[in-house]
């Protein structure tokens, strides 16, 4: 018997929703096996990894803290991906957003104004948006592949951030640690639940999800973005402006990633540090695809991804596992998702060995 992949006549709708669930299940299974080999009880380990982090209110608050930047980045990426603009640079856009927001916040250390926070957040969005626009411009002007340019911009962004954190942004009273001064209270995101770190960033993320949802499903610009992604020839014939749309989606996804970066600085960190993001921008790529580029899907996928981050931290503490467990789970999830997505357009067929056909001469 041979397994054979046969193209389906039509993409399977059911499979396109089932695939993420199947991928999640396979990730759990492989994770369990992996824990067994490390000498842990798989059920217990998975419980610590996936359930224990959110067993109390504090855990829930932490989940929201982690989910907010992931959701912001992922929903922005979904807009770009819908247009078939492959922005891999959410991480860099997030870092530049954090850097720009910090630059403003550090000027406002003595200021106590309502306008301080909006200014900080807006400069984060502006920074991220312009960083994204740069890749769009390279693509429009020089036909430079945005996958490559955005990846390279991630590194440029990281080293720019390090340059400033070790240089002019370093807190003079910080005993030489590479970190900025703590931001003024007026520049910090208000806390939602007392005694936790849960801040209003999660509300921004939810708002962004709703706005993008409306934009993609109800607005003409959203329609144009979708047409561009599905059929660029039709977009051209209809007179939609290709280059302008590429710029728009890159600004949107860059600005949302920038907001995520600003929210990290003005949120749980309260300052600019070198490790402002544990790879949220990369995780958001997985989240966007896991959520089928749909706002509702991205909402749930962001929570799952946040949970994996928390679980990784807890596994480090309780099971003495390295933090790499987080990346491992992320990687498995993406791997299984891509594998399962094959079944959207293909079905498995069992092939019995064929009796070689012959010319039957009578």
């Amino acid at each position, binding site marked *: 018997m041979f397994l054979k992949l046969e193209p389906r006549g039509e993409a399977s709708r059911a499979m396109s929703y089932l695939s993420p669930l199947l991928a999640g299940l396979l990730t759990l299974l492989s994770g369990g096996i992996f824990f067994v080999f490390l000498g842990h009880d798989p059920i217990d380990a998975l419980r610590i990894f996936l359930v224990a982090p959110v067993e109390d209110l504090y855990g829930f608050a932490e989940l929201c803290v982690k989910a907010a930047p992931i959701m912001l980045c992922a929903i922005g990426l979904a807009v770009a991906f819908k247009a078939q603009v492959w922005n891999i640079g959410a991480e860099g856009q997030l870092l530049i957003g954090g850097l720009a927001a910090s630059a403003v916040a550090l000027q406002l250390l003595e200021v106590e104004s309502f306008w301080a926070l909006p200014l900080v957040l807006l400069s984060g969005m502006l920074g991220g948006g312009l960083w994204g626009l740069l890749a769009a411009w390279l693509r429009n002007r020089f036909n430079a592949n945005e996958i490559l340019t955005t990846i390279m911009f991630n590194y440029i962004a990281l080293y720019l951030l390090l340059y400033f954190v070790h240089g002019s942004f370093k807190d003079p009273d910080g005993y030489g640690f590479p970190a900025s001064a703590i931001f003024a209270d007026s520049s910090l995101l208000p806390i939602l639940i007392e005694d936790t770190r849960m801040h209003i960033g999660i509300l921004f993320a939810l708002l962004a999800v709703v706005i993008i949802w409306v934009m993609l499903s109800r607005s003409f610009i959203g329609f144009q973005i979708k047409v561009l992604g599905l059929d660029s020839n*039709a977009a051209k014939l209809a007179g939609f402006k290709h280059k302008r749309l590429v710029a728009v989606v890159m600004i949107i996804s860059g600005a949302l990633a920038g907001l995520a970066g600003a929210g990290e600085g003005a949120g749980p960190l309260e300052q600019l540090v070198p490790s402002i993001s544990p790879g949220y921008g990369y995780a958001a790529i997985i989240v966007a695809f896991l959520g089928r580029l749909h706002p509702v899907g991205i909402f749930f996928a962001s929570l799952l991804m946040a949970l994996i981050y928390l679980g990784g931290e807890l596994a480090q503490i309780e099971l003495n596992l390295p933090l790499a467990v987080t990346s491992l789970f992320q990687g498995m999830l993406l791997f299984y998702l891509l594998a399962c997505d094959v079944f959207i357009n293909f079905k498995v067929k069992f092939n019995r060995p064929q009796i070689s056909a012959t010319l039957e001469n009578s």
Partner: protein
Amino acid sequence: MNRQVSATLSGQLRLQLKGITKQYPGCLANDQVDLEIAAGEIHALLGENGAGKSTLMKMIYGVTKPDAGEIIWQGSRVEIKDPSMARKMGIGMVFQHFSLFETLTVTENIALALGDEAGDLQLLAKKISTVSKQYGMELNPDRHIHSLSVGERQRVEIVRCLVQDIKLLILDEPTSVLTPQEVETLFVTLRQLATDGCSILFISHKLKEVQALCHNATILRGGKVTGDCVPAEAGATKMAQLMVGVDTPISSNYPKATGTEVFLAVQDLTNSSEDPFGTSLKKVNFSVRRGEILGIAGVAGNGQEELLAALSGEHLLDSSDPVKFAGLGVGLLDPRKRRELGLGFVPEERLGRGAVPEMSLVENTLLTGFLQGLLNFGFINQPKTEQFSQRIIDDYKVKTPNNRTAAQSLSGGNLQKFIIGREILQNPQLLVAAHPTWGVDIGAATAIHKALIELRDKGAAILVVSEDIDELFLISDRLCAICDGEISPAKATLETSIEEVGRWMTGVFEPTESAVSEQLDAALNTRSIN
């Protein structure tokens, strides 16, 4: 009459199909099809697009396998495993879309297709020239494919079949890419082949050609055989009705119009193609009046795509003057601005340019209809868009479950009716339609022709670019032809003939006045340099 001759000469059937059935998901492509071809017979397989002709011939050529039924080859039952087995048995096939490598020579291409059987290349080249001469389709074996015309490329495909020991030659719509003169040459070759004992299965939906060439015809509709006949004796109407069914109206005659003032004026349009294998436009001049249909004939790849892109605005010109709408130069305006000035456009590819395959008909209505008040401050007016899409579906009798259906699940003819309806209901002042009925069944084609005539009578200027010369004669008021990026002068349809248009299609026409002056200028320039 020929049939009797050849059948008695050979005394046996070459190929016999019995009860061939093929089921595809959601579509019974062939249903109990019987077919018999004698040695030396030219047999037509007639039917509309989607009637199951392609499926049937793919099974004969071993590309797919029947679910039920028997294939009997020269008296014995066979199971044709794959095309290479079919080739070994002596079956050759010329597909509608050629599979040739542009950068290789004729010999190299044929050697690739033959595989191990090719043998020594020089011997093969000799064989190619003898075989091609023998059948009156001369070919230079050392020429590269990209330097050959479409007609010559088809010869390469046919010769590829002939260098082997061939007993049955299958040709899929071979004339759709040829000029009328080339068709005649092809028919001479095919008749000679048949006289030499080769059977030919000629797949077509053009009745006139079948009548001119074939001894017998089998007619398919909806996967079933609806009749067999001798084309020379059966009337065209009878065969057409077997093809489309009795209730479908078959094309009628339309009165010709002369039009009023010029709406579209193309003057000295010269434009180099972006595509390295494309055709550049050279000093193109023509005009379309309000209330008339101008038809542009031509074999594919002679600059039609470039001309259409220059008219739609997909390819912007260097200056605004070469293309004018009602006196206003539009060469620098993008497609949207041209639509605002009254342009409607039906592209050649209906899926993937005229409509987004994955999107619903409602969304595809919005694709070009967004200027018709379907937007509110940048947001989509959903009820209005749905209404408009429903109007297209109702007015143009688009067969679809509802307006939420994805464009890709409509049949070609229905989608084309939808796209034409979408453009016409926007009341264009100028409608440019590329191959409006290509691959569309006769019923839908008639509906599309009527819609175009109606729009013309309302005073719109219409430009139709088509490869189907019969269609152009049917609906155009004036005709011209495009060849290698140049356009012939236009003549009233009633004052020209298929032969004349055929000559234009091969580039034989008086250059237009400006082209003459251009040549004069060039001559003067060279003289002054000297």
